């Protein structure tokens, strides 16, 4: 159902990094603290030129490491400021120690993050191993399929993170080079509209409130740690409804609705691929071709991986015959990928459930193309028709 939109949007050609920097310009955070890392460098770099040209009021803190970038953001956010940073891969891993602290302090820091393979060996290209490594840090994780989504997601992330029922940090990812450096035509909201959508920020507490001196970051012993973790755990659960509501509102206003998941031709689907990020775009083409051939194939794109949309995923997949979960990282758990194991757990208590296989693909920027995805759907069709499941976890596009 196309939504009628009254807001005149600017059409522009932007790379993923440019689009995210543009969203940051419109957000005009009080503080940005960032450190360069391929392929996310440009985000802060472009933003620096906005600072240099006086297009934003932001205090830019050009730190000496990603660890300090997030540490400074925690300081700024605890001082009641809207704070942002951006990073990728090793940078995210260096931030890893501070990520759960930001979440526990309930600081709504928003971070554009470009998915890049983690080192061992070093590699600058796309996979999801960095983001998945930090999946249990208490951060909301939103994956973008393309440049438009990257822009839209950054704006929405501010609303979601700062929502009174959430107050958690959020990261918005794009796929390294595939989105970050590829130029696409996107629609950009007018500045005043973007600012109105995100609204003014009112922090819940501030260490700058001299009249009410607070202690932030206390040490908890056995008697309080659990009680301080519970509200954060609950906030992640609450975040699902908020993400849906913000995505719906964005759609009503600007014609591009968002949800936790995107169901592509799933209504009568018998087989489906589940994936995240840019691969969804490629898979949609494959689904279209298969549909033309009369196959009931569909695609389930997980837009929000944290909080994990357990109920929604179970509801969509329970009635299918065969499902392939595509993971752009391996859990290194001796089994399969993180999306696979979580999708399986989402379905475990469903009375009806599909056969599920897992493909690890695209590590270190290895291409995923239409033929590879077609081969996955072909296998799903065979499984649907009664063929044995065979290898449950397989590696797509790797020379074995």
């Amino acid at each position, binding site marked *: 159902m196309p939504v009628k939109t009254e807001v005149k949007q600017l059409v522009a050609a932007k790379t993923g990094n440019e689009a995210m920097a543009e969203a940051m310009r419109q957000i005009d955070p009080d503080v940005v603290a960032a450190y360069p890392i391929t392929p996310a460098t440009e985000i802060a770099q472009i933003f620096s030129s906005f600072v240099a040209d006086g297009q934003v009021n932001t205090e830019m803190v050009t730190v000496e490491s990603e660890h300090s970038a997030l540490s400074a953001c925690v300081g700024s956010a605890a001082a009641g400021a809207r704070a942002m940073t951006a990073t990728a891969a090793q940078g995210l891993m260096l931030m890893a120690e501070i990520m759960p602290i930001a979440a*526990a*302090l*309930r*600081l709504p820091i928003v971070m554009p993050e470009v998915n890049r393979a983690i080192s061992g060996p070093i590699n600058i290209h796309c996979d999801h191993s960095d983001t998945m490594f930090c999946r249990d840090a208490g951060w909301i994780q939103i994956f973008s399929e393309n440049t438009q989504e990257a822009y839209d997601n950054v704006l929405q992330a501010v609303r979601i993170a700062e929502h009174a029922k959430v*107050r958690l940090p959020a990261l918005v990812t794009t796929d390294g080079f595939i989105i970050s450096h590829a130029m696409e035509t996107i629609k950009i909201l007018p500045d005043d509209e973007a600012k109105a959508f995100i609204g003014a920020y009112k922090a*819940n*507490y501030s260490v700058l409130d001299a009249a*009410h*001196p*607070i*202690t*932030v*970051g*206390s040490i*908890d012993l056995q*008697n*309080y740690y*659990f*009680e*301080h973790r*519970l*509200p954060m755990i609950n906030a992640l659960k609450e975040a699902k409804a908020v993400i849906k509501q913000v995505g719906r509102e964005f759609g009503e206003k600007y014609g591009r609705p968002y949800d936790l998941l995107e169901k592509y031709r799933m209504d009568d689907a018998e087989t489906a691929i589940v994936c995240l990020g840019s691969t969804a775009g490629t898979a949609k083409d494959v689904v279209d071709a298969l549909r033309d051939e009369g196959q009931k194939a569909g695609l389930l794109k997980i837009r929000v991986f944290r909080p994990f949309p357990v109920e929604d995923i179970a509801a969509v997949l329970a009635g299918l015959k065969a499902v392939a979960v595509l993971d752009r990282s391996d859990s290194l758990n001796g089994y399969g990928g993180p999306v696979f194991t979580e999708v399986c757990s989402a379905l475990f208590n469903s009375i009806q459930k599909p056969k599920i296989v897992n493909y690890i693909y695209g590590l270190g920027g290895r291409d995923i193309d239409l033929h590879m995805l077609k081969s996955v759907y072909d296998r799903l069709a065979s499984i649907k028709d009664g063929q044995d499941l065979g290898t449950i976890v397989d590696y797509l596009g790797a020379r074995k």
Partner: protein
Amino acid sequence: MTTMLDEKKYTANLPASELPEGGVWTEAGSSLMRKTGDWKVEQPVWDKAKCISCFTCWAYCPDSCMQIENGRMAGIDLEHCKGCGICANVCPPKVSAIKMEKAR
């Protein structure tokens, strides 16, 4: 030492629903609710007549126990004093207004 803090918050463990968000604590100086005075084996005894209110003991007491009223030394907060003996040690020898003795 008197405080305006709600004692219940420090004698009972509060449920998650009653805690400020983000692990923040809003009652500044609440550690006074913890009586560290029971740690001590020795305690300082202050002789008001000898004291010249030079405040040297105030400067060096690690537990902020030196009480001041109207710009003069007024006593020692034994509820928090851990009996380290620094006050007696830094009291000028000619003054010698603080002596350590076995804690009661």
